[in-house]
């Protein structure tokens, strides 16, 4: 099934190549579980591209972060997006970081992406993977220790387990059939509600506990397609000095507050921050709460309507109760 979709992707790209300057997609990495982003500029390289549930990266960040992938005069950038990635694109178009007319969006409905770390944990971290096949929700892995089968559901990333938008919300070409969301929109924030049953002190201790693992590598910030300050990020400025260089829990708290609050009302929950975290901090959970607040106060969900304005970048003089 994934090979068919990959072939379809190649076919579509060959057809649109005349108007496209550069293609952003995924290619196979050093083993079948590891997929890496690739920038393709010529037709002969199109066959490198793949699409399968190991394509975890959100490629939209490459369009805005330096050195950004930009198309030549009169041409377009083709970018492959899953459901969550397409919402990042919408958010970037909303804030005028991207010009919709210069993009050719290739949407691929997503049935969930796989966390290679969970797979490796199951088959043993030192094994070598030769082959990985997915069929009917079962992942079959040939590795140096033999053959192993597991259900896809047991190795999905957390963001995929709570995905309500698996189908791209914005696209020029859609490849493959649309899929039904794993959960309903009304259930999106059940984890937040559950967490809020705890007392204030328990919550603070929870965050102190998980955030004390943070090494401030800034991977969460760098992977985020909407964190576009880059070298101007206030977490690395000496003036104004928001955080020190010292690895104390206080500085870590402030860093994550900066990251979360700068994304308040903008975060599209693509989960890249959490996926790239080397120490497994549930970074996206902080943003889930902010999104829950924005949904409740302003009935706003980020990354759905390219014409909408994020709620904290505007105001309504008549709103009551705030």
């Amino acid at each position, binding site marked *: 099934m994934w090979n068919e979709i990959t072939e379809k992707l190649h076919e579509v790209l060959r057809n649109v190549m005349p108007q496209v300057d550069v293609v952003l997609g995924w290619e196979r990495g050093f083993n079948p579980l590891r997929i890496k982003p690739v920038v393709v500029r010529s037709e002969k390289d199109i066959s490198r591209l793949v699409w399968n549930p190991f394509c975890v990266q959100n490629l939209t960040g490459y369009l805005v972060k330096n050195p950004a992938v930009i198309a030549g005069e009169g041409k377009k950038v083709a970018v492959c997006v899953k459901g969550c990635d397409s919402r990042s694109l919408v958010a970037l178009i909303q804030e005028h970081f991207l010009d919709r007319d210069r993009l050719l969006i290739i949407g691929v409905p997503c049935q969930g992406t796989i966390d290679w770390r969970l797979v490796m944990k199951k088959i043993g971290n030192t094994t070598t993977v030769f082959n990985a096949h997915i069929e009917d929700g079962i992942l079959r892995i040939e590795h140096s220790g033999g053959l192993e089968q597991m259900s896809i559901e047991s190795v999905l990333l957390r963001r995929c387990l709570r995905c309500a938008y698996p189908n791209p919300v914005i696209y020029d070409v859609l490849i493959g059939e649309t899929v039904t969301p794993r959960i309903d929109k009304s259930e999106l924030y059940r984890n937040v509600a559950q967490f809020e049953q705890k007392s204030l002190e328990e919550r603070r201790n929870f*965050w102190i506990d998980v955030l004390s693992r943070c090494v401030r590598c800034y991977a969460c910030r760098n992977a985020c397609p909407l964190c576009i300050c880059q070298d101007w990020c206030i977490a690395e400025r000496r003036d104004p000095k928001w955080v020190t260089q010292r690895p*104390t*829990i*206080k500085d870590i708290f402030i860093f994550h507050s900066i990251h979360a609050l700068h994304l*308040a*009302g903008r975060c599209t929950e693509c989960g890249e921050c959490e996926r790239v975290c080397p120490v497994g901090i549930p970074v996206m959970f*902080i943003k889930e709460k902010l999104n829950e607040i924005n949904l409740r106060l302003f009935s706003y969900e980020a990354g759905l309507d390219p014409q909408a304005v994020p709620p904290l970048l505007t*105001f309504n003089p008549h709103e009551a109760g705030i």
Partner: protein
Amino acid sequence: MEEKSTTSANEMKIIGFLCNWCSYGGADTAGVSRLKQPTDLRVIRIPCTGRMDPLFVLKALISGIDGVLVSGCHPKDCHYAVGNFYARRRLEVLKEFLPFLGIDADRFHYTWVSASEGQRWQEVVTEFSQRIHELGRNPGVGTKTKTENSVEAY
């Protein structure tokens, strides 16, 4: 944050961010009218509540400040026309967000006081500092570790 010797034992550390055009004048009016006010408040003058970065509040509360009060012009009365409309949304989102990190949202309050409302300013500041006294000291996050220019940091 280390306790300064000038701070008496039962005095709380409260930061007030006051808009230059309204609440700062309101606090001045209260002073000129010789209205009695609690002494826990340290005032920071800002050009407009639109200048308020929610991170000001978060950093203060994480660092162990006992309470943060933000006060500006009444909505529709902003000197810059719309500053407090933006502030209203940001500060409300922040207020809802604080408990998620385990910070008591009662330690943060935002309100609107105009330059002529000396009486109202007195009520606001008295009420807020009373509330903070009831809540007691803010544990903050990691405030016991020595940081910031301290030689014993390591």
